[in-house]
Every structure is written in structure tokens, then in C-alpha cells.
């Protein structure tokens, strides 16, 4: 296969989970709750859904199973994220600490439960979800090869999530209220918006998308789940910041980070890149370094939600 197409296809596989999870993080942070628990939410979502696939793959296969697994991942993510919501909204806990606790809990819980159920911590699954070629669309030159061959429905799900997320955030009443709660909750409250409710909604959305993102990350890249999403939750956080909390920019950031991940993992197979002689570790580091640089240059006019990380307290001015 043409290495350029290969690179594009791989980039999609790495970018889509980042996109979905970062959009989830966006809802949480725009509502005013910092969510560094994305890593843990992804882990739990992936764990629950892969366990589901592992249990039902004798009876089902292909897209129906994947769709059900996506629902399971979303459900697991939302339940898990509510712990974060409860601590940071109702208990006014420090959001970073609560997130850290959930990040510690998730892999430990996944390993413990997997071992209790099946003896080993890896949960295997058969990958019956790949679409060789989408009829008609797969024949479109260039675009067909990039998007509609060797693809997963999760890719289209990611694009769908992006479209819906940007509409919801920017064009609906709900989105406006959510953003108000992240910028100035007291003002939002004064015009009758229930800040607690909006923040719960924001965190729950990050739970749904984070959980799905965990599954979407594991399916194309592996045939088992080993209680880890390899730092993708933190990378998604970087995508969110790199994308300055805006849906379209998050897409660009996710594509850029995905490309870097792809190059780092597949560069030995691409003659052009090996001849450059840049070690793969550099590609692995670039997303994080780039985020720091972008932060340093944009900090004066940062787009970060003003009230993110500050518990809302009605009694405070």
C-alpha cells in the first residue's frame, strides 16, 4: 500500500480517540470542572466494554456487537465520572485531587476485577469490527482510501461527535448556559441557571465521551486490554489545551498529535522517515513539548474557561 495512505489511515486511528476524549474534556472544563480524570474514565470505559465484548463475542460479532460495546463504554464512563462530579461539585473538593484519585482507582480496579473473574489481567477479544471497504464511498479517489478503507465505524462516530459537539456548544441554549457556568457561575446563577445541574451535565458528557474514547482507542490498536490506555487521557488533556477549548481547533490538535503518535510507532516502516534519522522518542515527546510551547505563547490571551477548577459556592460573591 502507498505509505501516505497507510500513514493517513493510522493517523485516523490514533486521532479519533483523542478527538472524542478531548471533546468530552471540553464539555467538563467549559462547565467549570477541571477533569484530569479523563485517563481513568477511558480506562474504565475500555475495561467495561472490552469485558462485555469478551463475554458476548461467542454469540455476536461485527458492528452490532461494537455498537452495544460503545453503549456499555458510555454507561461505564458516565457512572465513573459521576464520582468526580459529586466530589468536585457537591463536596467542593479539589478537582485535581479527586481526578488523581480516580486515575489511580481505574487501573487498579480493572486489574483486580479481571484477575478475580478470569485469572489474568489481560482481557482478550477478537477484532471482528474492521470494515475492509465501505461500498461506493470507498471507491472515491484519495478520500475513499483515507477514510473509507480499513476503517472502523468509530471513525465516523468521532466525526459525528465533533459535529454535534460544536453545534451543541455554540448554537444551543444548553451550550450557552454551559459556557456561562464555566466563565462566571455567579452571573449564570443570577439569571436563573442551575449551576450545579449544568456542571453535572458537563462532567457526565465527559464521562460518556471519555468512556467511548477508551474503547475506540483499544479496538484498532490491540487484541487485548491490559488495564491501561497508555497515557491517552493525559494526551487528550493536552489536545484540549492545544485546541484552546474549541471544537474545530481540538480537531486540528487531535490530528497533529495523532500524526506524531503514528510516526513514533510506525516510522521504521516508512523509508522516508527512517532516512531522516530522527529517533522515535522525539516524535513521542513532540506533542507534550508543543503543548508547553503553545501554552507559553498563548497564556496572555488564554481561552481557558475563567471559572474552571473553582468550586461554585452560592454564598460567595
Amino acid at each position, binding site marked *: 500500500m502507498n505509505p501516505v495512505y497507510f500513514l493517513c489511515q493510522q493517523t485516523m486511528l490514533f486521532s479519533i480517540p483523542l478527538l472524542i476524549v478531548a471533546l468530552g474534556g471540553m464539555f467538563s472544563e467549559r462547565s467549570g470542572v477541571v477533569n484530569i480524570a479523563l485517563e481513568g474514565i477511558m480506562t474504565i470505559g475500555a475495561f467495561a466494554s472490552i469485558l462485555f465484548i469478551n463475554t458476548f463475542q461467542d454469540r455476536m460479532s461485527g458492528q452490532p456487537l461494537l455498537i452495544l460495546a460503545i453503549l456499555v463504554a458510555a454507561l461505564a464512563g458516565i457512572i465513573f465520572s459521576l464520582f468526580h462530579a459529586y466530589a468536585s461539585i457537591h463536596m467542593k*473538593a479539589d478537582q485535581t485531587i479527586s481526578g488523581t484519585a480516580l486515575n*489511580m482507582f481505574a487501573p487498579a480496579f480493572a486489574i*483486580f476485577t479481571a484477575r478475580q473473574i478470569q485469572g489474568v489481567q489481560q482481557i482478550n477479544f477478537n477484532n471482528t469490527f474492521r470494515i475492509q471497504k465501505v461500498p461506493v464511498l470507498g471507491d472515491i479517489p484519495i478520500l475513499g482510501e483515507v477514510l473509507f478503507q480499513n476503517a472502523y465505524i468509530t471513525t465516523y462516530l468521532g466525526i459525528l461527535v465533533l459535529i454535534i459537539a460544536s453545534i451543541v456548544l455554540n448554537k444551543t441554549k444548553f451550550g450557552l448556559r454551559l459556557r456561562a457556568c464555566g466563565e462566571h457561575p455567579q452571573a449564570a446563577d443570577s439569571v436563573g441557571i442551575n449551576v450545579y445541574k449544568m456542571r453535572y451535565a458537563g462532567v457526565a458528557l465527559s464521562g460518556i465521551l471519555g468512556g467511548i474514547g477508551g474503547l475506540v482507542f483499544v479496538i484498532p490498536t490491540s487484541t487485548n486490554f491490559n488495564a491501561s490506555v497508555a497515557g491517552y487521557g493525559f494526551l487528550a488533556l493536552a489536545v484540549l489545551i492545544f485546541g484552546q477549548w474549541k471544537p474545530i481547533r481540538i480537531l486540528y490538535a487531535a490530528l497533529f498529535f495523532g500524526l506524531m503518535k503514528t510516526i513514533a510507532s510506525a516510522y521504521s516502516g516508512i523509508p522516508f522517515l527512517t532516512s531522516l534519522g530522527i*529517533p522515535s522518542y522525539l516524535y513521542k515527546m513532540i506533542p*507534550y513539548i508543543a503543548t508547553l510551547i503553545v501554552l507559553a505563547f498563548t497564556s*496572555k490571551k488564554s481561552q481557558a474557561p475563567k471559572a474552571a477548577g*473553582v*468550586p461554585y459556592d452560592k454564598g460567595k460573591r
Partner: protein
Amino acid sequence: MSGIGNSSKKSGWKNLGLISSIFAIIIGLLVGFLILLFSNPNQAIGGFKTILTGALTDGSKGIGMVLYYATPIICTGLSVGFAFKTGLFNIGATGQFTVGAFASVVVGITATKLGNIHWIVALFAAVIAGALWALIPGLLKAYANINEVIAGIMTNYIGMYLVNWIVKDTNALFNMLENRSKPVAPTANIPKALLDQIFKGSYVNAGIIIAVIAAIIIYIILNKTTFGYELKAVGFNRDASKYAGINEKKSIVWSMVISGALAGLGGGLFYLAGSGKYIEVVDELASAGFDGISVALLGLSHPIGILLSAIFIAYIKQGGFYLQLFEYSGEIIDIIIAVIIYFSAFSMIVRNFISNRERKRKVDHIGGSAQIPAPINEPSDYGSENEEEIREATQEEGGDK
């Protein structure tokens, strides 16, 4: 990061912090027990006993091992706790730990002509490397106002990849067969200081003494010096401190650098313990840094509390090793610790509950009809004595973000 470094308004509430820590531990253990009970009812009681007492199974060897495991997490706990006290959340301790470990291993392997002071030099290298790595988030926070949590997460990954890259690409350091770093020279190992005689068969060494000394130094800096006072003041309110004539940018950088130095020290102590630890070339963050967060939270960021909570966490982790006898996986310990952290994050509710009752009792005493407003967001109590003065000097208003 509001709330972490603040003290309560009434000094009588100081022990409420302790109560909330104990409350968090009890809930954590309870959840652990319920999970054991749920997954295998027959073994649950035996398993739970093992968590609580397993570390003592082998007598003095077990205690020695607890001290050995506690050593690095005392340091990362001090690192995170010191940052908390100065209003920063050093989630980057993991990266600083790794970079410090790397520096100590490099010196340990290459500088073989140093003789008796070899291990001291290697430890210093770790301290300096950790401090320098923390300089990045410190400078970014002070001069570009970048949240240190984000910068810390980024530098964690950059540090981990950088260390793996250098170890892997340097023949003098890399053991290709095992995919890890080569062993350090024997002179680079920290002396046993007779501790191996007391705790026979364990890995404990003078590192624990160094960690305790570090805790004492941090206590003195924080509570007995103007320098520490300034660092804490900046943590409470950056703008007010600036107004009061403190160089607030310099203070933030110093806080991060000292915090990083402690994490780096932890890395050095861990890899120079002579217990067969090598830098493994895997793309995974070191867990010691995250354990440091647990230790600091549980220890209320107080140096003595950190010593105790590090020993407690090392103790139940050691107990966890014996859990396999009961067909449980040792990860239950990590679950328990995570639950403890979760509950210590909102331990405020315990404080509010107790203070509510106290208020109520007073109201009842007076006559009952007086309306007393509900306590609004009482700041959490990780403070100590002279923080009261700081609060008066710098009004708590919002805090920095």
C-alpha cells in the same frame, strides 16, 4: 488550586484534619473489605487481616522492608506536600523523580573513581536534576502564569521519554538483554548504616535516615524561617504578597525547585538502594510520584504527617504482597489508597459536619432560636501554627488558578 494550602480559622480545629484523615483511611479500608467480601466471601476476613498485619509476618525483616518502601515515597510525599503548603500542586513529581533517578544512575555507573563519596555525589546529582526539571513548570508558572498541573503533566511525559531515550541510546548505560539500565557501581550504593543488622534480610539502608532528615529540614524551612513564610504567603495570595513586598515570581520558582529537589532525592534513594532496581525502558510513568500525592494528602502536607502516612502506605502495600495466599490480587491495595485519596479530597464534609454540630450545640445552649448561617466552604485544614498570621496578612480571596 484553592483550598489545599489553607488553614482553618480556629486553631482548635487543627486536629480536625487528623480526624478527617483517619475517617478517609477507615472508609478506604471499609471499601477494600467490601470488595474482598464481594469477590470471594470465604476468604475475605483472612485477606483483610493480611492487609492489616501482613507486613509483620516476617518480623523485623518485614518492618525493614516497610521502611525501605517508605523511603522514596517519603521524599515524593515531601515534594508534593511542600508544594501544597506553598499553594502549588506538583503533579510533576513523577517526572522529577524519574529525572533524578536517571542522574543518580548515570553518576552511579560512570563516576567510578570517586570512592567513598561516590554515593553522596550520585545523590546530589539526583537532587539537582530533580530541581532543574521542576524549574520548567516553576518558570512557566511564575512568568507565564501557566497552571503548574498542566505543565507538570507535560514534563512528566517529556522526562520519561527523554530518560528512556538517553538510556537506550547510550551503550555505557544500557543493558540491551534486559532492556534496562546497567547496575550502578557498588560504591554508589547507599551504606546500610547497621540497619541491615537490626532488620536482617531486608533492603533497608541509610536512605530512610536521609529521608527523615529531609523531612526535618522541610519542617524548619516552612515553620522557622522568613523564607518559608514568604513561600507560604505567596501560596495564599500571590497579589497580596507582591503588594507586601515579596518577590512573588522568585518565590514560586523556589517552591517548585525545592519540591523538585525532594522528588529527585526520592529517585536517587530508590535506585541507589542496592536492591536490584534498574531504570526499565518502558513507556510508563513512575508510580512513586503519584504515591507522593497520596502520602502528602493523607499526611496533611505536614512533614511529620508525611513520614507517618508514607510508612502507613508502605505498610499496607507490603501487606498486599501476601494477599495472593488468599487468591486476591494485590491491586486491592491501590484501590484502597485511591479511595482514601478520594475521601481525603472532600474531607471538608467531615469538618463541616463536626463544626455544624458544634455550632448547633452552642445555639441550643443559647436558646435555639438564633439563626446561624450554614458554614460556607470552610477552607481545608492542611495548615500549621503560623499560617494564621499569614491569613491575616494576606486576605484569602479567590487564590490563584
